[in-house]
């Protein structure tokens, strides 16, 4: 995990600040809606292109941090501007860019007022999310984590469709804020622990929040457990994990579809676990108590989410609970702590960006047509809008993990990993598969099949134009990952293996290596920074 690759030019910084720059430009533009929309699409599109450049130049099957940029920011406190992506984070960056483009397309004619502000907020939000994924400095990470709240708050509050959107926005912000306070304490403790070690061993620098540097030092197990739970508060509130989930149904139901796509599709909370908690605190993560609590919460989430989803008459509320259920699967995979579990969790987090987020787009299409997603307004829609029904089925089946779709690959790996580690947990989790089929298909049956609902006699437009672009691109991803996941698996495998090794070794017995100096070896377009290690005295 210590190897770092740098790239010819600071592509991650570009990736990070380009949307923000775009937002500023948008802000300065005239109040012409068409101009604003086209500009927003151009910015989001170019961002996606940049993300694809990163993916194409990403070296697969490698555990190295790639495209690394490192600049000192506040040296006395050991805070740095340190960016980099590896197999764990790079796909999230691309996913964020992908979804933002689709959201811009979706918002094209669904956002009618304050168009400029909306797109400014959306692009600003993109920057903060990308920031969360590319930050390798914990303070930098935390800054983006918190900054994300500002555009989110306004997006829910100002463009939400529900009557309770004020309440939902506030609830979301407070929840996250409360959790992140604990997380900040955890981060500070990591730094203090480092400081203590640095002073003892006369190492330089005295303070650091650098993720890679923090990896190199030992942390006593009781501190690991304490820090784990502090980080847990921040991550579990954001994820959200049961029982900290109640902000999610409100935010998803009251907020605009674009925000729902971000909240449901980009799994920041569980990303935090696999990015920071597991590698930094391997002994705590393997701790029996920790695993038991995490698994229990996750299994409750799977069954609870699925059963509550079963009876929801509102599609978006159903999706919120299905999202909670899916997150349960992700956490089960994470705390299986073996290769398949981690790989499956990682892939599932990406998958949810296509399936659950995709279902929110489809919910949006329905909402756009009926001004509600409640079952009472639907019935027999398959006859009226066959394309919409077809795509809803495709993406819905992906979300319940039908083989051939992306959902299956991720879910299978998670369940296999969980079963390998703890067969009982694995077995309980498998029942979630049955319930998933039940809640989705039951809703689908009532909304799409059967006789036409009352008040639907008038014509209803089927998907076309931009809507079709969204649905098709999501479906392409669904089948690509489902049938030929090789490129995605190769990207993540190296990092997953490194994480598994680290979890197996633990931090206590890990060789205590210190990053002291770096020598550069130029190979092709890549400059490989080899870390020289010095055995501590």
């Amino acid at each position: 995990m210590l190897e770092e690759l740098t790239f010819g030019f600071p592509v991650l910084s570009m990736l990070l600040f380009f949307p923000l720059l775009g937002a500023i430009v948008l802000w300065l533009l005239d109040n012409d809606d068409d101009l604003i929309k086209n500009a927003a699409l151009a910015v989001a599109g170019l961002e996606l292109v940049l993300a694809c450049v990163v993916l194409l130049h990403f070296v697969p099957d490698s555990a190295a941090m790639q495209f690394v940029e490192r600049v000192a920011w506040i040296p006395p406190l050991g805070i740095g501007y340190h960016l980099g992506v590896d197999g764990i984070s790079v796909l999230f960056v691309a996913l964020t860019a992908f979804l933002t483009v689709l959201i811009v397309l979706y918002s094209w004619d669904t956002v009618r007022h304050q168009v400029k502000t909306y797109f400014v907020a959306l692009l600003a939000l993109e920057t903060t999310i990308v920031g969360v994924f590319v930050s390798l400095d914990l303070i930098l990470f935390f800054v983006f984590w918190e900054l994300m709240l500002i555009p989110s708050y306004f997006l829910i509050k100002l463009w939400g469709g529900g009557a309770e959107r004020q309440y939902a926005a506030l609830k979301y912000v407070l929840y996250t804020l409360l959790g992140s306070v604990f997380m900040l304490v955890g981060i500070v403790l990591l730094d203090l622990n480092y400081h203590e070690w640095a002073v003892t061993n006369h190492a330089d620098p005295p303070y650091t929040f650098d993720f890679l540097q923090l990896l190199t030092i030992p942390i006593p197990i009781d501190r690991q457990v304490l820090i784990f739970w502090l980080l847990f508060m921040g991550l579990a509130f954001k994820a959200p994990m049961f029982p900290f989930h109640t902000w999610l149904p409100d935010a998803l139901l009251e907020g605009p579809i674009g925000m729902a796509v971000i909240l449901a599709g980009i799994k920041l909370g569980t990303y935090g676990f696999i990015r920071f908690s597991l590698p930094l605190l391997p002994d705590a993560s393997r701790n029996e108590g920790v695993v038991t609590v995490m698994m229990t919460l996750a299994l409750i989430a799977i069954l609870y989410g699925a059963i509550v989803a079963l009876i929801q008459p509102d599609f978006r509320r159903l999706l919120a609970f299905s999202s909670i259920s899916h997150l349960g699967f992700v956490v089960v995979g994470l705390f299986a702590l073996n290769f398949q579990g981690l790989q499956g969790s990682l892939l599932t987090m990406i998958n949810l960006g296509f399936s659950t987020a995709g279902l929110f787009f489809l919910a949006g299409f329905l909402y756009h047509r009926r001004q509600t997603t409640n079952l009472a307004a639907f019935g027999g829609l398959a006859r009226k809008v066959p394309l919409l029904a077809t795509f809803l089925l495709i993406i819905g089946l992906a979300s319940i993990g039908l083989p051939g779709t992306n959902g299956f690959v991720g879910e299978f790996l998670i369940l296999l990993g969980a079963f390998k580690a703890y067969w009982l947990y694995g077995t309980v989790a498998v029942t979630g598969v049955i319930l998933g089929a039940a809640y989705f298909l039951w809703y689908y049956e009532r909304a799409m099949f059967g006789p036409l609902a009352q008040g639907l006699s008038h014509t209803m437009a089927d998907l076309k134009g931009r809507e079709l672009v969204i649905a098709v691109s999501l479906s392409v991803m669904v089948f690509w990952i489902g049938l030929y996941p090789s490129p995605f698996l190769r990207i993540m495998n190296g990092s997953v293996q490194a994480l598994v090794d680290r979890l197996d070794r633990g931090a206590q017995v890990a060789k205590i290596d210190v990053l002291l100096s770096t020598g550069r070896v130029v190979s092709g377009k890549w400059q490989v920074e080899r870390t020289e290690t010095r055995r501590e005295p």
Partner: protein
Amino acid sequence: MFELLVILIPVLPLAAVLLNGLLGSRYSHDIAHRLGWGSVGLSFLCAVGIFVETLRTGVAREVVAYRWIFGGDLTVNLAFLVDPLTCIMMLVVTGVGFLIHLYSVGYMHGEEGFTRFFTYMNLFMVSMLLLVMGSNYLVLFIGWEGVGLCSYLLIGYYYDRVSAAKAATKAFVVNRIGDAGFLLAIFLIFVNFKTLDYTQVFAQASQLSTGMATAIALCLLIGAVGKSAQIPLYTWLPDAMEGPTPVSALIHAATMVTAGVYMIVRNHVLYDMAPVALTTVAWVGGLTALFAATIGLVQTDIKRVLAYSTVSQLGYMFLACGIGAYTAAIFHLMTHAFFKALLFLSAGSVIHALSGEQDIRNMGGLRSKIPWTHALFLVGTLAIAGIFPLAGFWSKDEIMAHAFTHGQYVLYAMAAIGAFLTAFYMFRLTYLTFYGRSRLDHHVAEHVHESPAVMIGPLVVLAVLSVIGGFPGVPPESGWFHHFLHPVTVAAGGGEEHGAGFGLVATLMVVATAIALLGWGLAHYLYSVRTEAADNLAARAPGAYRTLLNKYYVDELYDFLFVEPAKRLGVVWDWFDRTVIDGIVLGVGRLTQSGSAGSTWIEKHAIYGLINVVGYANHLAARSWRRLQSGKVHHYAAIIVAGLFILVHLILVWWSGSSGIGVASR
């Protein structure tokens, strides 16, 4: 060339799916159906080529398409295994599939969603072929759930009908229960063998403990029971008759529902090591064969009778697996595919002739009006009833004989009673449909017509197969069929035993024939000679009759036990979520609010009070205070920061107490 042919077999229908699915609306129905049956026909030809090659070389070969899922110690290829068992299954699936596709051209003519129908049917062929051709459990599983999906789509083909939509969901969800069991089996296999490839798993199988082998075999059985509609997961199949009749013939009779049987035979190495699991298989099969047959006695929907008959016949195949007669199971699978497809399609021809009428109480006397259909249906009936020397006779007799010669007398008795009931309800169906006086609605009667050649043609082929399809398995237990399948079904410990003498075999054949004739005779008596006798019988035992008619109330029982409680639990938990969990959150929120009110109080009274004392304008302070109060977020943030401060303080105190934060303590 061999590899190419193998890969083409599923790829050809897949290409048709893509073409019809994406572009189908742009061209005429003629092109759509030609792509549909043409691709399956070509697949069949490829399968014949592969079959001939396998027959010549006699070796099993694996064809890898690409690496599918990998990482760590797991590698799963999208790969195919070609061995005798695969060959038989491929031939049955593509052969019968081709005939049914051809038939559908006539049957579905003029239906709305014609192209959609062929797209789904071809997608089914792809899934089914993956199922039988896969060389590891995961490729099998793609097909396994894929056929479930196609079954869902095709049952719900007439999605406007509430009953069809409900049946579709039910089929998928019940199948998923089985699939969950199958997944567990896959996990157990991987944990034990570190691979999911058949060949490697079976090679190492002998290292398994009996307990583990039993666990794997039972989990696989859950999957098989779901897919093949056995007790207790059979309830979806009769409802599945909501789909168009060709679907019932292809998916719910000839191919998909036999997947469980195929899977057990494929894994017989594991089952052979787990006697408990084998016994379970045998009893599940025996009970289902008998149980479904009893329900079939009184049903009045022509397709539902056939559906229960399918469940019952699948029971025979399970029974065969359970007593170790794997070849017989596959043999019956094959002959059943012929005659049950024939029966369903002839029934479809009847329904077609009667403009959609399915209730046999409204039929009768059709023999002269649709003679071809009558003759074909009769051939199917004779075959399924086990009349010598039709296909069903040989395969069913072999299963029963195997049970008898291996000392399984109870199972034999169950199978024999089942055979009697089968002959009875099938001839009941024939008599009520084709003989006696016409009970047709006169509007319907005016339009009765024989089906077109495109429908009758495939039926004739199936009828011929139903007559001669048993001969590859003659003589019993040592026919060509047995020799061909021998390398696959041979027991791990040695060859299959051939214990029974000719005398016993011949006697059992005579007994089986007698049983079938008895059933026929009874049906003839009740429904042809004394037509009022059946109603009298029903009137004399109304309780039993109603129980059978209502299928032993099993659907109602499952609703009561599982479906309703799950919904109620959902309602309760939803309430819990909104009231309790969110209530706690709101409570905490209110606490924070009073906390922030407190901080405001301090601000107002302490700070501004102080300012007042100093002499600043009072109204200024009040105004700032009002402004502060309007921005709630500010206060929450203040509380959170204060909390943070306290928290850090507490942790630091604890930390320095336990290990010392500074260097000094070291």
